[in-house]
């Protein structure tokens, strides 16, 4: 009897964890977007108040953030300083490609960020400020969508995992 209970609990735990893993995909995206937005806010400060040229600005941000974003900004900064791509848009897109692979950002986030790269640095400060504001609004929309999807799916996957564990447990016992 004791063994049965232990085995059952193990199944329950395994299924529950599977559910949590599936739910994580949804809970990660809003976090990723939020983190990205915070880094873009740093970029805005660099541009609007510091007037720092982009390669240097990216470098500064890479020093302040962690993880995947760090390598994203580091990559672009290197690319621009070495003059490898000869264009901001190309460097940004290449960096973004990698960022999307390593995070839970979706293709709609990618498109949005990619478009922002096209205007980054291409106009005077006043104009850049407007682009930043617009980008925040768009990011916010994506974030809300992601949040909604999270609310809907996170709980569902979690309880689904747990419940399926219970079902198996009952069937086996």
């Amino acid at each position, binding site marked *: 009897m004791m063994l049965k209970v232990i085995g059952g609990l193990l199944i329950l735990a395994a299924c529950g964890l599977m559910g949590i893993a599936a739910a994580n995909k949804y809970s990660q995206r809003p976090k990723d977007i939020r983190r990205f937005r915070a880094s873009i806010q740093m970029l805005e400060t660099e*541009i609007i108040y510091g*007037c*720092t*040229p*982009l*390669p240097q*600005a990216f470098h500064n941000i890479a020093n302040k953030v962690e993880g995947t974003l760090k390598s994203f900004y580091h990559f672009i900064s290197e690319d*621009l300083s070495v*003059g490898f791509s*000869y*264009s*901001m848009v190309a460097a940004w897109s290449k960096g973004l490609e990698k960022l999307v692979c390593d995070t839970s950002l979706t293709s709609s986030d990618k498109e949005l960020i990619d478009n922002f790269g096209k205007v980054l*640095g*291409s*106009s*005077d*400060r006043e*104009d*850049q400020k407007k682009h930043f504001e617009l980008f925040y609004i768009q990011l916010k929309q994506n974030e809300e969508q992601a949040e909604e999807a999270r609310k809907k799916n996170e709980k569902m996957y979690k309880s689904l995992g747990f419940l399926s564990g219970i079902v198996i447990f009952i069937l086996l016992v």
Partner: protein
Amino acid sequence: MNKFKIYEVLKYIPKEIKTIIENLSPSLLESMEEIRLRQGGPLILYGGGKEYILDGHGRLVFDARNAYVCTTEDIKNAISLVTNFSIYSFEDEIRNGFVTIDGGHRVGICGKVVLENGRIRTLRDISFINYRVARQVLGAADKVLNYIVNSNNSIYNTLIISPPQCGKTTILRDMIRQISSGIETMGLKGKKVGLIDERSEIAACNLGLPKNNVGIRTDVLDGCPKAEGILIMIRSMSPEILATDEIGRSEDAGAILDAINAGVKIITTIHGSDIEDFLRKPALEKLHKNLFERYIIMSRRHGVGTIESILDSNYKSIKSNFAKEKTL
């Protein structure tokens, strides 16, 4: 050293056009002075007083119809490269119509001007770009130094008058270098020179350090407006000589007057083709009254760097038979 200046400029030229230009023979490439991109227009280079039109494979063509035509993309990329991908950090430069890149080379830009309260706010739709290769010519000022060094171990207040592209900045730079380092053959001891380099063209500073040789006793105020710069220099660096490029506004005139009254010698330049041009500028009226003791008039009659004549404070010619003598 000058031979390689063109390669500093090439770094700021869009890939497509760079590949085309690099097809030129090295000797021809190294003689280039200007590279011009016009949106929808042919790619034209100037060097040694000659014009070169290139096609898409870097071959010279005579008919502009066969030339490589610069695309919108080329111009966009060029602007992006020249401004280090950040137009916003070059707002002032763009307003003035040019950006100075590493090595002191100047990139001129033209487009649609956006006005705000009658003043230029920015340039939009940039469609004309001119890369100008700046060259340092050591010894460019040799021919004129004799006339600006005076007997009591000092120099005269000097104004260089020259149309664009005649080498006035080159001469000024070499004057500064020689006066600052001292000229043994003339018995001139080195002087403390304060250089106000508003456009980073003379010293070509990068991160505050001069990339051109401007002498060992030269302090450089990089990117500073002339009028303010002159006052800062006098207050803080106790210069014996102040040097600056292309004066023109009435504030400049006021500051120079202050400097001369403070006992500092001035070397500066102005756009024009003869002394009359200088006297006709109302903004510089304060400087018309025999303040300058030497006027050097330049042209490109016998090539870049031709000295037309040297005048004294009463506009009398001291020397004018520089015929066929080239300084550059």
